[in-house]
């Protein structure tokens, strides 16, 4: 009886699955990258109540505490004096067709004063990342890759540098230091050069874009993402604003 039932179940699985249609082969030749002339420029605004900033407690490592004259604010949400938002990663999410060779100049992730510098940055697939320890203490660099392999490096000595490359786009890949639990950095890995991170002016600019219709996404670690669809003609410059609220 049981055997018969199992047999019927097996039969049921067999009948339940539709025959798979062969998928079309991927196009063989990718179009060569076109040096564009259009630009998306703008800024990222923060509206709403500004939360009271919290402080980082660095007492667990005396070196870190002594590396700063004053107390260090938590960097999860940094609002500039002009009301713009810092550490927002802005990039073209959809709409690009070309392939873009990665730059050979490496991006740098520095550990200085027991903080990652920069906290947020972009990088192209295949572009090297130099990870450096500028501190006189021990750091581990723990990359929580999801699409890229995760890794955990030890950098116990000041001046140590290690080079890493990433093979898959991943927005965002998080770094953490398990010695200093407040240390967090984010890396936006994309397969083109049209990405930027807002600084203390809150502005960004994506230039040399070919004409086309793009979905541009702005990412913030605490406030999530915002997207806009922007259509560009050759040589055109469009100004856009992203607004985040808590």
């Amino acid at each position, binding site marked *: 009886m049981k055997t018969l039932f199992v047999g019927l179940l097996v039969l049921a699985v067999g009948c339940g699955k539709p025959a798979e249609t062969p998928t079309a082969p991927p196009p063989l030749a990718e179009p060569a990258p076109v040096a564009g002339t259009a630009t998306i420029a703008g800024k990222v605004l923060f509206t709403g109540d500004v939360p009271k900033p919290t402080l980082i407690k660095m007492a667990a490592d005396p070196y870190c505490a002594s590396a700063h004259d004053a107390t260090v604010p938590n960097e999860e949400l940094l609002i500039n004096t002009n009301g713009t938002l810092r550490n927002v990663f802005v990039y073209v999410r959809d709409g690009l067709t070309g392939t873009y060779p990665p730059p050979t100049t490496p991006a740098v992730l520095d550990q200085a004063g027991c903080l990652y510098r920069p906290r947020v940055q972009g990088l192209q697939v295949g572009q090297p990342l130099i990870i450096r320890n500028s501190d006189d203490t021990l750091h581990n660099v723990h990359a929580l890759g999801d699409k890229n392999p995760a890794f955990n490096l030890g950098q116990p000595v000041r001046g140590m540098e290690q080079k890493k490359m990433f093979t898959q786009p991943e927005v965002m890949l*998080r770094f953490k230091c398990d010695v200093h639990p407040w240390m967090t950095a984010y890396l936006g890995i994309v397969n083109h050069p049209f990405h930027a991170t807002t600084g203390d002016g809150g502005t960004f600019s994506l230039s040399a874009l070919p004409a086309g219709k793009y979905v541009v996404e702005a990412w913030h670690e605490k406030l999530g993402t915002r997207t806009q669809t922007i259509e560009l003609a050759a040589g055109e410059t469009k100004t856009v604003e992203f607004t985040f609220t808590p």
Partner: protein
Amino acid sequence: MTSRWLHRLAWLTAGATFLLIVAGASVTSNRAGLSVPDWPNTYDQPLWRFPFAKMVGGIFYEHGHRLLASLVGLLTAALALWTFFGQRDRLLRQLGLVALAGVLLQGLLGGLTVKFLLPPPISIAHAALAQAFFCVTIAIAFVTSKNWAAVQPTDAGNARGWALASTIAVYLQLILGAAIRHSERGIIAHICGAIAVITLTIFIVRNLRQFRGPVLTLAGLIILQATLGIITLYIRQPKLAPGQLTALQVLLPTLHLATGAMILGVSFALTFKIFRQAGAAPQPQSIRAYVDMTKPRIVTMVLVTTALGFFLGGSHAWGNLAIALLGVGLATGGSAVLNNYLDRDVDLKMARTRERALPAGLVAPAHALALGVTLVLVGTLALVWAINLLTGFLVLLAAFLYVLVYTPMKRVSWFNTTVGAIPGAIPPLCGWAAATGHLDTGAWVLFAILFVWQHPHFYAIAWMFKDDYRNGGLKMLPIVDPAATFRHTLVYSVVLIGISVLPFCVGMAGHIYAIGAVLLGVWMLAVAIAFTRTKTFADAKRLLKASVIYLPLLVVLMILDRL
């Protein structure tokens, strides 16, 4: 005849192990598990060479844990060598070797989880083995004590069963707790487990009065633990949530884990002691006797109807079906064992059941009790953890109705058959709930069919063995009111025909099923009528056979119509 120093070394090892568990808990609480990327070295330096001044931040917890672990490793090695070469006691020598193997494996698991960046299965295994190792060190401390050899056997009654079930349940809770910390899964199962442990503790307080000290300690720790658990639940942060943790967010989960280890220690010590007092170590029973107690044929029928519910619920996640069957199977088997446990006096009076494991004396009642409680718990928790809360609830409800309502009711009222038909009809609900997460009309239709079907099925059995049931003092309908037996059999057989067409009415099955169901129903009704006319054993047996053939055929029809 063991040295007092060996005994002291054993307690030192157990104490150091407890501290090591708390240190390990601090590593996870402080999220410091990867603050030392290499292993067995610490930042390229041998463990004992790494300077204390560099134990900053997370390294303090991780490296400190490793230092303490190496100390426990040395203590265990000394203990193992001492017991193996210096002692005659077989159990003691075995425990020494088990401890040594455990500590080596534990170190390896710790290293592996660092090397592979804390994969949840390895981290959970590391946490689970830690607690098991702790129990082994306690066992060694007991066996090396001065008065261990002098303990006089006493009748412990059911104490063994309750204590063993409690230890197993607490250990499962520790594994579930580790699962929450390392994989963010199992919170609901852990809460259900907590309720189970609290219930068991209440039974222990009531039943183990002769062990006042440890039992009251256990009860006190459980109350503390529940309080810590509730607070931890509210303030804990997922392990990958960004941001710095507050002191309380670090401290409370650590205290919760430390208290958990203490509870396990006390519960295990109590169990170990009771088993010693109750006589020699339990003789290995034939596995067959244990398997028979789970009533494999009933379990098979339950699994078939569970699978039917799952299939008709419309899910094709066969992995979930496998887990659901495992959970339902374990809980059903456990319920059957508990039914055996409660009925062991009645079973002894009846020819049909005299040869069962408990009345035949093949298995100690305490073992059956512990096995039953454990199986029900593991099955339910597995369902809650891996499937959903509803399925776990249903299987626990069925176990409750079967063990604590139906089983005692057999001695009181003929109505037991109808009450017992409820848990008997729950399995397809479990399957449906496992497939869909809720119960629809279709699930209740299956429930109704099984509920009605069980009446002629069990009345036939009751008639066949009515003399036996009378000897056992069970109030089955053929004994209380023979004429009613036939009336009920006929009524339920007719109702079954109507109910069996319901799947067609609600669109679960097509014409083939409807025609087949009516034909099958009429055939079974004919057999039932013959039985009510002749009232013979032979015709009762025919009805039993017909009912046993009827149900699988109905299931096959329903499935065929769906394909």
